[in-house]
């Protein structure tokens, strides 16, 4: 017995039990409960109050005690509740030793389950506790003959088996409970319950969930029922998108001679190294866009704007801003680099990006306090739209 406990790695416990011979029953319980305390932090706050009336524990107390002990036992606790009572009141068991064995096995049961509930404390721990329970039993029967101890050994083996099976069961149960947190796979009547079928069902459920997600993405896919049809629709959509990309690249290829893609190093380096969010603001200040004189309908030469330096810049002369050395010096150094490059060849890409993608002609603040006039206010009878709205009409 001692060897077993030493195997359990609890030297202190062994010492305690070495002195057990000259202890009263109550003291032994105390030692044991201390041990419990040590290994079940959850029980700590209320356990000491067990001592005075441990033999007279009534069920109600235990009931009220368990939830208050800070254990977050889910549903499983409800199932095991009857057993749990037994496990918490060892005093009851030891004092009435008539049919304590049976109960103790139940006790072992719940111990292991409770342990599983408490996030799988180490296996070693659990074994130690089980052994300890058995030890208690052994102590009780210490005055019985050798035969008796042999039978106890048998019982112990049995108990171990039981414990093993029970731990398997309980681990399964906890796994199931974990799983039900995420996917609700429950075997209905007539459904197979072995792990393979459950896994398969979970997998299918996952797929159908993704499918539903895809269904929301693909237009015209809501009405179709059945996975095959849905997949068909999805495939068609992907194909159409790919064809669209091909078509558009064809169009771009024919258009591209008109477009000078020869963007200087500045663009590729500065733009890419800059963080994405700040990019349009640093590289393409709004007033520059306006003064670009880009031949598009949206560029109205009548606009009056402020640049961020609070200088009024009119767009009558498209190159005024670029010839204006003063404004150039006031910009950040990386934007200054932009000015050094020849104007029309290298800036086109930036303008295209700004005009067509960002719509900088319309999305900027006009500072009223400096006498700026919002162009949209000048002509109230004209219906204005944003660039993206305008572009959307073309789609």
């Amino acid at each position, binding site marked *: 017995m001692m060897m077993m406990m030493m195997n359990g790695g609890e030297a202190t416990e062994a010492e305690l039990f070495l002195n057990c011979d000259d202890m009263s029953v109550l003291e032994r319980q105390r030692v044991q409960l201390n041990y419990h305390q040590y290994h079940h932090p959850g029980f700590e706050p209320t356990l000491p109050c067990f001592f005075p009336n441990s033999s007279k524990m009534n069920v109600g107390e235990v009931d009220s005690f368990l939830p208050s002990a800070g254990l977050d036992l889910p549903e499983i606790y409800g199932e095991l509740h009857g057993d749990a009572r037994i496990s918490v009141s060892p005093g009851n068991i030891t004092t009435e030793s008539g049919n304590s064995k049976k109960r103790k096995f139940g006790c072992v049961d719940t111990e292991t389950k409770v342990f599983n509930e408490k996030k799988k404390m180490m296996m070693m721990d659990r074994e130690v506790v089980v052994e300890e329970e058995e030890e208690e039993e052994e102590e009780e029967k210490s005055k019985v003959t050798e035969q008796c101890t042999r039978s106890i050994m048998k019982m112990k083996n049995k108990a171990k088996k039981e414990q093993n099976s029970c731990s398997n069961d309980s681990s399964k149960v906890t796994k199931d409970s*974990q799983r039900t947190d995420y996917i609700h796979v429950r075997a209905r009547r007539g459904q197979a319950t072995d792990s393979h079928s459950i896994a398969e069902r979970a997998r299918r459920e996952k797929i159908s969930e993704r499918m539903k997600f895809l269904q929301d993405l693909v237009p015209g896919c809501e009405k179709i029922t059945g996975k095959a049809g849905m997949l*068909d629709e999805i495939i068609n959509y992907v194909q159409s998108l790919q064809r669209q*990309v091909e078509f558009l690249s064809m169009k771009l290829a024919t*258009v591209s001679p008109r477009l000078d893609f020869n963007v200087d190093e500045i663009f590729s380096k500065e733009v890419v190294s800059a963080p994405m969010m700040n990019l349009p603001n640093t590289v393409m200040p709004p007033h520059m866009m306006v003064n670009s004189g880009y031949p598009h309908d949206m560029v109205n030469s009548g606009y009056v704007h402020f640049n961020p330096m609070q200088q009024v810049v009119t767009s009558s002369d498209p190159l005024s801003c670029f010839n204006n050395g003063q404004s150039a010096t006031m910009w950040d150094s990386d934007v200054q680099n932009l000015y050094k490059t020849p104007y029309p060849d290298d800036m086109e890409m930036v303008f295209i990006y700004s005009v067509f993608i960002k719509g900088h002609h319309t999305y900027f603040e006009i500072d009223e306090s400096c006498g700026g006039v919002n162009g949209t206010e000048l002509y109230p009878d004209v219906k204005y739209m944003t660039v993206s709205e305008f*572009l959307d009409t073309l789609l």
Partner: protein
Amino acid sequence: MASADKPINTDVPEKDVFALHFLQSLSNLRRQNTFNSPEKTNDRVKKIKKAAYVSMARAAGGTNRLWSRALLRRAAKENNKIVRFPRRKKRVTCLRRRSNRRDPVEEEEAERLRNLVPGGGGMGTSKLMEETAHYIKCLSMQVKVMQCLVDGLAPK
């Protein structure tokens, strides 16, 4: 178990990011001599298309998505470059064999989808769905960007 059930994440960056990457790769194309020289439009179309896909993969997925990894890898292979991506935690190559033996009807459709989505060959069905969702989002975004460009540049 828990890791497999994380919520489906198919967030796609803004349109600007796509546009930026696309324009950049277009300008890269322009810088190449072969692109400038008078040649068949067919070649140019191919190049632009490839640029569109690669820039899309760069903009959206990077190396985090299976489809974008496959696209980038394929593009690099065409350029005879060897690329090394950070290895993913899970190897998915064995999944296909396993999933082949069930759901014959559904699996046939999924097989077609696998051929469409880049890198789909090594995916399990549920992963394929997730990647497809992301791929569709990115594709539609790219189409929008290209449409904007074409509309803006088309002769009036």
